[in-house]
C-alpha cells in the first residue's frame, strides 16, 4: 500500500464531503426538514441525485418527478459498479456496502491507482471518507443554514474541480483523445440538455472508437 493513495482518498473525501454543507442548507431551505435531508445523505448518498431531488421539491414539483430525476442522475453509478466488481470483488454484505459507497469519487480514486491493492484501498477509503464528511457536513448545513458561508466563498467548488482534474491527470497520457472528446461533449451538452444528460453522453463517448492505446 502506498501513502499516496491514503492522502489522495482523504483529500477527495474532504474536498467533496464539505459540499454537504451546501446540500444541507439547500435541503433545509427547500422545506424538507432535517430528518428527510439527513436520510437523503445517508441512504441516497449521491450528490447529483440528491441535488436534483431537492431542486425539484424546492421548485414545487411532484414527488414522482423528484424520484425519477434522482433515479436518472444515478445511471452512471451502474457503470462504476461493473468496473468495481472486478477490481474489488466484494462478497455477501460487503457487496451491498460497496454498492452504497459507489460514487464518482470512490471509483475515480480507485481507477487512478496502478497497483490492485491500492485500487481496493482507494475505493473503500474514499467512499468511507466522503460518506463521513458528507453526512457530517449535511447535518451542519441543515441545522445552521448558511451560517458557515457559501461553498463558493471558501473556494470548495474550485477544490472539487481541481480534485477531478487531479484524478484524470494520470490517465491523460494514454487517453488524451478520449478525455478531450468527453470534455467537449459535456461542454456542448450543458447548455442544450437537461441536467444529468451531459454526463450520460460523455459515458457514450467511451463506446466510440476514440484513441488508439488501450
Amino acid at each position: 500500500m502506498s501513502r499516496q493513495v491514503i492522502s489522495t482518498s482523504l483529500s477527495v473525501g474532504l474536498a467533496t464531503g464539505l459540499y454537504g454543507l451546501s446540500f444541507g442548507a439547500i435541503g433545509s431551505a427547500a422545506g424538507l426538514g432535517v430528518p428527510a435531508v439527513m436520510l437523503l445523505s445517508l441512504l441516497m448518498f449521491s450528490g447529483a441525485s440528491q441535488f436534483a431531488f431537492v431542486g425539484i421539491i424546492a421548485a414545487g414539483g411532484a414527488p414522482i418527478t423528484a424520484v425519477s430525476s434522482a433515479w436518472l442522475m444515478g445511471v452512471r453509478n451502474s457503470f462504476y459498479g461493473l468496473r468495481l466488481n472486478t477490481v474489488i470483488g466484494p462478497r455477501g454484505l460487503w457487496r451491498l456496502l460497496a454498492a452504497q459507497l459507489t460514487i464518482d469519487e470512490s471509483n475515480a480514486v480507485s481507477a487512478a491507482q496502478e497497483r490492485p491493492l491500492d485500487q481496493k484501498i482507494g475505493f473503500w477509503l474514499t467512499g468511507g471518507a466522503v460518506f463521513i464528511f458528507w453526512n457530517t457536513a449535511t447535518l451542519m448545513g441543515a441545522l445552521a443554514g448558511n451560517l458557515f458561508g457559501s461553498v463558493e466563498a471558501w473556494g470548495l467548488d474550485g477544490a472539487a474541480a481541481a480534485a477531478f482534474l487531479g484524478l484524470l491527470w494520470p490517465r491523460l497520457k494514454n487517453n488524451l483523445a478520449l478525455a478531450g472528446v468527453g470534455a467537449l461533449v459535456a461542454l456542448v451538452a450543458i447548455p442544450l440538455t437537461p441536467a444529468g444528460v451531459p454526463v450520460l453522453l460523455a459515458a457514450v463517448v467511451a463506446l466510440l472508437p476514440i484513441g488508439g492505446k488501450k
Partner: protein
Amino acid sequence: MISTVIFASLAVYSWKILGFLIPDRLIGRRGRLIAERMTVSLLAALVVLQGFSSQSVLVLDARAAALVVAGALLAMRVPYIFVVLAGAIVAAGVRFLGF
C-alpha cells in the same frame, strides 16, 4: 416526505447494485475495457461540469483560474493534496478580489 425519500434512495441504489450483480463472465474483457474507458470520459465531463457550469449555463469564473493553477501544479508533479488545496485557495482568492 420520508417515504418518498426512502423510495427515491432505493431507486438510486438500484443502479449502484446493478453493476455489482452482473456476473464477471457476462462482462468479459471488452466490457471491462469499456468500463475503464468510461471512467476517463466521465471524469473529463465532470471536470467541465464542476469547473465551467452553473445549473445548465456555461460560466467562466474563479473556478477556471483554480483549474489553470491545478493543471500547472499537476504538470510540475506537485502532490495531489496540495493541488486540491491550491484549487480552493485560488478560487476563494479570486472571488475575494472581486472577480
